[in-house]
């Protein structure tokens, strides 16, 4: 059970108020009609599954209903930051992490 800081409610809340919605920062292609089947398939189905830092999008379903981003360590389950949709992460994702 995580405890998650909602950047909109500005409070830590229990995990059962939230719903995870998968990998963050998936840009919907601006011109889907011009994508090849492969490009579209990559957008639709291919997701990262890293050991270590991962950025996910979560929704505060039982609270403010807002979506926001989480940078989370998939090994230690440590949440390093949460930030609003449209904002940028402050974590250097390339930096190697110890787990």
């Amino acid at each position, binding site marked *: *059970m*995580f*405890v998650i800081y909602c950047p909109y409610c500005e409070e830590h809340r*229990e995990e059962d108020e939230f*719903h995870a*919605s998968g990998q963050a920062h998936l840009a*919907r292609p601006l*011109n*889907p*009609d011009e*994508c090849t*089947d492969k490009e*579209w*398939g990559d*957008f*639709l189905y291919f997701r990262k599954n890293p050991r270590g830092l991962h950025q996910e*999008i979560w*929704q505060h*379903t039982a609270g403010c*209903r*807002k*979506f926001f981003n989480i940078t989370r360590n998939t*090994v*230690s*389950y*440590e*949440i390093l930051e949460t930030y609003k*949709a*449209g904002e940028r992460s402050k974590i250097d994702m390339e930096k190697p992490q110890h787990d």
Partner: protein
Amino acid sequence: MIKLVHGRYVQNYRLPSGGRIDRSKIFTFRFNNRYYKGYEGDTLASALLANGINVVGRSFKYSRARGIMSAGVEEPNAILQVGATEATQIPNVRATEQSLYDGLVCSTVNGWPSVRFDAMSLVGKLAGGAMGPGFYYKTFMFPAFMWETYEKVIRKAAGLGRSSKERDPDSYDHMHHHVDVMVVGGGATGLMAALTAARSGARVMLADEQNEMGGGLLHNGVEIDKSSAIDWVNSVCTELDSYPNVVRLTRSVVTGLHDHNFLTVNERRTHHLGDRGPTGMSRERMHKVRAHSVILATGAHERPLVFANNDLPGCMQCSAVSQYIRRYAVVPGSSIVVMTTNDAGYQCAFDWHDVGRDVVAIVDTRAKPDGDVVDKARERGIELITGSAVIEANGSHRVRNVLVAPINDAGTFLTGEPQTLLCDTVASSGGWSPAVHLSCHTGSRPVWREDILGFVPGDTHENRIASGRVNGAQSLSECLTDGVNAGKQAVHSCGKQFDSGESVPPVPAVVEPRVGKAMALYLVPHTKTPTRAPKQFVDMQNDVTAAAIQTSTREGFESIEHVKRYTAMGFGTDQGKTGNVNGMAIVANTLQQSIKDTGTTVFRPNYTPVTFGAVAGSHTGALFDPKRFTPMHRWHIEHGAKFENVGQWKRAWYFPREGESMQDTLNRECTATRESVGILDASTLGKIDIQGRDAREFLERVYTNAWAKLAPGRCRYGLMCGDDGMVMDDGVTSCLADNHFLMTTTTGGAANVLNWLELCHQTDWPELDVYFTSVTDHWATMTIAGPNSRELLSRVCQDIDLDKEAFKFMDWREGTVAGAPARVFRISFTGELSYEINVPAHYGMHVWEALFEHGRDFNLTPYGTESMHVLRAEKGFVIVGQDTDGSITPIDMNHAWAVANHKSFSYIGKRGMQREDCLKPERKQLVGLETIDPNTVLPEGAQAVRNPQQSIPMTMVGHVTSSYYSANVGRSIAMAVIRDGLNRMGESVYFPLADGRTVEARICASCWVDPAGDCHKS
């Protein structure tokens, strides 16, 4: 009938005075159908020992007699079935954890047919090899068909307790807490830490598994601040209880320490009060605690030493012996031999000596022990045998004698001949293993410390402090100092401050003895090798021997995790509390490596077993899952409706009359609707209010069809796909004003659709000016359908012009229905003339009843969801989620008319639908089906084949999605997805059914009633 006999035993092992028991409160309890007596303050274990009961169970694998070994949660043997009635049965109760109450009924779980004479013990004695290490794997992997047989034998023999077959009459609940500092364990360290933290004003919770705080202080007879340690415990508890922000829980085991400092604390609230708890009080409460800081003051478990026949009743931990004597005034034998590798083990000999029983000898494995205790033993005249060990115990149901032999300094071999000492009790101490379990629950690995011969908690990124014995502290004064420091550190990490230096409690004064160095000894050597010597048990609960561990390493299972799985060491409810370190030491020794390099297995939640009741809490029975009701639910109940679950909603399914079968009811409801007028409670439909300048643009993007020209006052069917091009939801959306729409969704899809719209808006198109608000619960929705629906509506609605030209099909109007403010939508899911009346939910019942008042003239017939399904199927209308399954595109669904290809924005689903795979001609397509025999109704889900004569496995070409008998059509009708179905009208497909029949059906258009669509426009 079980004959009950009064016990022959009369607490012969109870001391005449002392102990923390109340002798004025005498309890009677039943163990294996005999009655015994004990006192308030006893545990079940102390009461059993007071009555001289040696054998409390048979071992899991070898069926050996076992007695009580410890006095706490680490007890591996005394695991009993408790409960006076079938309904109150609880398995896996540790006698050492269970407080005695009057009328307690318990029995051994292992041992079949009885614990004293056990048929299975022959297996243990003669055929032990058949259940050797790796037994689970060697036996069960093949042949597969033998699984069941083996499992039956094992389960019966193992007898791991059983659950009640009846409903549990007790209740359980949960409670949430948020604290600054959570202190786990109420011994000296925990009390000190909690006191320190509490003085800062922080929110503190202190939990201890015992019935009172104090831990070891309750029985080790030490002094703190020059008075009894128990006085100190009492004064700390009194102070803690005076703080409003402190919660102090006894009988509460912290069973799990999860991510982000979330703890589950299982409080046994009524277990000590009786077989059933008092009314209104939950039996167990699961406290769910979120803590900023956690202080682990879980203490340590004493390691028994591993020697031959060390599982005989009478073999105990040294500390347990002390605890029984001092805390419960029970001396569990007459003559004792104490074996120890350290100074702490001496105390139990002194306690035994103090109560006037015979201490045969203290066998110290160290050649030259030099602590203060050695002098004390000599002063008492106790025989001290140094540089030696108890290598074997003998007896059948109780220790009768032991073999003691000299050993070398490293404790690896014998250096002389064994001598025999007569005794009935052997207490052993191999040192103390910190109770690191909780520290491991989120993945941290404990670290070996050679100086204390134990594992201590490893590093974690969580805000946790291990304090006192669990962190390697050896003396009471170290523990108290650690406690103060941990308390301070936790308070500071919460960002809190102490008012002044004085509020931090001083470390109380304790006189510490001089302590000699302990010896590292785990497996005591024998004259024979482990495989030839009598069994030397490492893990009593799982019957794992030293020989088994050596065998597994010989067979190549060298990683400690493999050894665990091969031997079952530390499995199950035991979680390696007493045996793990001994086992690791044996592995290390066999592989000639250090314990540090061997490492530990992973300790998992739960620390002790948790009942299903505690896990479920109050979420049982009627409260298992929320039931959602419409505003007209009461009416449905009063009119005999049967209900069906649609998500969490309870929807009226059909309204049977006296003597009707379900089909009779459906026929009546469907016919009445098409002939006159029917009414459906459609309040469960998802409804989303959409406002904003870009509301229309947003609809353009999420629906497959066009919305640019929908005028206020008009409604339109909308079809929604995912990005993969598959149908996700559908419904009618109405234009309330230029920038204001009301979207409806399927009942089950409401929450998902709203979240989907929010996701699209918030993450992909935040620039669009649009707001979504769920209004599902705000509106009571009632659909009246049938040729007389206009007439009926006109009786209760005078302010809307119902003329068919003024209020056309797919129009909506605002007005007053039966006096209530309403929006009326002229839409139809039956194909009939139909109005969907929406009024605020608080008027729902009123309007519904008003319609019935006027409906008498029209035989207004309520119909439920089943008739709704039939009526729409007669028109071929789809239900998303029933006729679709996430692999159906709008084209597959024969809804090409709802797909606009020339919208400016590449709407969601467009690109997905154009993937190569979605364009293949051979896709499954939604079609109608008519069985050749009009009375045969195909089962939904039946698989279609083109040629029923083909050999199995047949090539399946689709399946039935909806199937009913239609009274209006006068035959069965069905919808199905069939490969290339739209191009195969008139062809037959076959349905080979599970009952052996093969049903033939012809593919047809999926519309049986009014294909021209005159009715709904009439």
